[in-house]
């Protein structure tokens, strides 16, 4: 342990360093992180790598349904567009939808769940009954309803997905808060005169962090899949946007003639979801001091 004059700062620095050291130890998480960085880079620089008008939208009918080749590693689609370019550009939409919808859902859901679980009693009852009305409708159906009411575009899709994420985050937070609040160290914090807000933020929520983080990463994956599913049935991002679900949807008529058209978008979805889960698992291990060996 490094000795630092500035005690408080050294504790924080050590914490960040320690987390990184733990994270690095997990091979799967490191592979996941590397792939995730690649995916994020592709998403951020999609405009630089591909020209939206020429590479993504422009039809080249003469070259339709070409199998994978050096020129088109993932083949071409039914309008002769390069599948690699379309899938690469689609990373943007999938990651954006996955992360933003879970972020909104978490930012709203976690505080509600924390208050519900910590205060308990009548407040808890009222909040949870309201949340229950959202949970009784299957989340995909819920999203379909919301998208059809709000209209089909990227923003509405994210809103719809985050609304179906809120009850999940609320429930998991409430459950873990209820376990943690009965611990002696919460009573101990009250005994030194800590105000309720501080107890919730510093003592309760950090101890609920692992289940919330795991749930959030799982939700990123399932949001991407839900978005893909909605695009597949035509309720997601409108054509010709190269969203992965929409790509899959377009491939369904050509599944006999051109398998590459459904194979690669499917793989892209699968790998992305897996990568996010790997990173989430690594983070959970690294952030939880109890799991350190």
């Amino acid at each position: 342990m490094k000795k630092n004059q500035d005690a408080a700062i050294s504790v924080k620095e050590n914490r960040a360093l320690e987390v990184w050291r733990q994270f690095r130890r997990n091979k799967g998480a490191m592979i996941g992180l590397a792939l995730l960085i690649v995916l994020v880079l592709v998403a951020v620089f999609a405009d630089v790598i591909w020209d939206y008008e020429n590479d993504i939208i422009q039809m080249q009918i003469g070259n339709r349904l070409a199998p994978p080749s050096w020129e088109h590693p993932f083949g071409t689609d039914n309008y002769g567009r390069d599948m690699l370019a379309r899938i690469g550009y689609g990373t943007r939409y999938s990651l954006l939808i996955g992360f933003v919808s879970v972020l909104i859902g978490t930012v709203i859901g976690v505080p509600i769940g924390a208050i519900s679980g910590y205060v308990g009693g009548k407040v808890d009852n009222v909040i949870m009954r309201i949340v229950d009305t959202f949970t009784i409708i299957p989340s995909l159906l819920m999203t379909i309803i919301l998208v059809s009411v709000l209209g089909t575009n990227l923003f509405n899709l994210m809103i719809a997905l985050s609304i179906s994420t809120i009850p999940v985050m609320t429930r998991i937070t409430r459950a873990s808060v209820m376990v943690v609040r009965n611990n002696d160290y919460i009573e101990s914090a009250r005994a030194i005169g800590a105000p309720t807000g501080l107890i919730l933020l510093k003592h309760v929520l950090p101890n609920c962090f692992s289940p919330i983080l795991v749930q959030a990463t799982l939700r990123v994956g399932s949001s991407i899949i839900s978005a893909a599913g909605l695009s597949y049935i035509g309720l997601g991002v409108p054509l010709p946007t190269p969203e992965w679900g929409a790509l899959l949807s377009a491939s369904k008529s050509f599944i006999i003639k051109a398998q590459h058209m459904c194979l690669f978008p499917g793989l892209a979805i699968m790998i992305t979801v897996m990568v996010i889960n790997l990173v989430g698992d690594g983070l959970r291990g690294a952030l939880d001091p109890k799991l350190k060996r």
Partner: protein
Amino acid sequence: MARWTPSSSDKEEQSVFKHKQNRQRIVQALEEKRASTSNAVFVEHLTVQYVTSKETVAAVNDISFTLPKKRTLGVVGETGAGKTTAMLSLMNMVPDPPGRIVSGDIQVGGLDMRSLSPSELQCVRGQEIAMIFQDPMTSLNPVVTVGEQIAESVLLHQDISKQAAMVQAKAMLAKVGIDPDRAGEYPHQFSGGMRQRVGIAIALACKPSVLIADEPTSALDVTIQAQILHLMRELKEENGASMILITHDLGVVAELCDDVAVMYAGHIVEYGMLEEVFNHTRHPYTEGLFNSLPNIRNRVALLQPIPGLMPDPSKLPRGCAFAPRCSYATDACREQAPDVHHFSDTHTVACTAYRDASFAIKRRDIE
């Protein structure tokens, strides 16, 4: 990622800041409310109940005691006798619901704890009165470094920077015999005895004038117990604090305490100075406690436990709660609440048998 959630740091900072702003005002209000007194703790007719839809549990029934400054009070009794509930109500921290302080007067350092607002209570807790918890394995937050946990207590009650608080926390660690360089480590990296030292450091960080120790050594092994008790006494004397020690262990009481309160089924049945309670035992229950100790002079002697069990606190008998187990019990004991008899200025016993002036209990080891 130095923090747990991206937003928590700011909010935490804010809430601490707000807390600080208000504190000055609250401290002034507290000083106005404070009555001058020479007692660290004064409790009169305290009654605490746990009320549920099914039953009402009478955990503490009409207890009174005073703790002068710089003295140590030992509270002994069986599990469920109401010791912890009574001491939690000193901090006005009885879990509500279901707990309720029904009546009584609680004063800590001249402050009426029952009339304080929540923010005033927060100001008093930790600063005036602090608590050491029973199980060091669960009373420390596993995801916060021990240094931060000690510093938190300082930060809540003093207007100093985080860095200065951490310096104080390290000094506190050194005082309880832990290398200050370990301030950045987490509770799971410490052994049970060291964690209890950290617990003591947290409780004493603001130099409270009253320290409640709730069975501080029950979860530790015997060799560590002595160290911890020694440390507690040393620090208590250094700070000039008063202490209330809850324990099952009569040996610990003999070692540390000036006064003793024996609790049974929510009542204080015998109260007095150490010497009076231990050497001139008057109450049959206290007698039973001593008789159930192993006798070092006669190692083959059978232990003499008190027959029976403590009554269900939701269905306390009409008369003396100890009567069903008491070998001296008469009909008068079963019918009405016990009389209180004073044997000296300090020694009181709640037992009806002393109506008969010639009554005396038979303690095995004194004979």
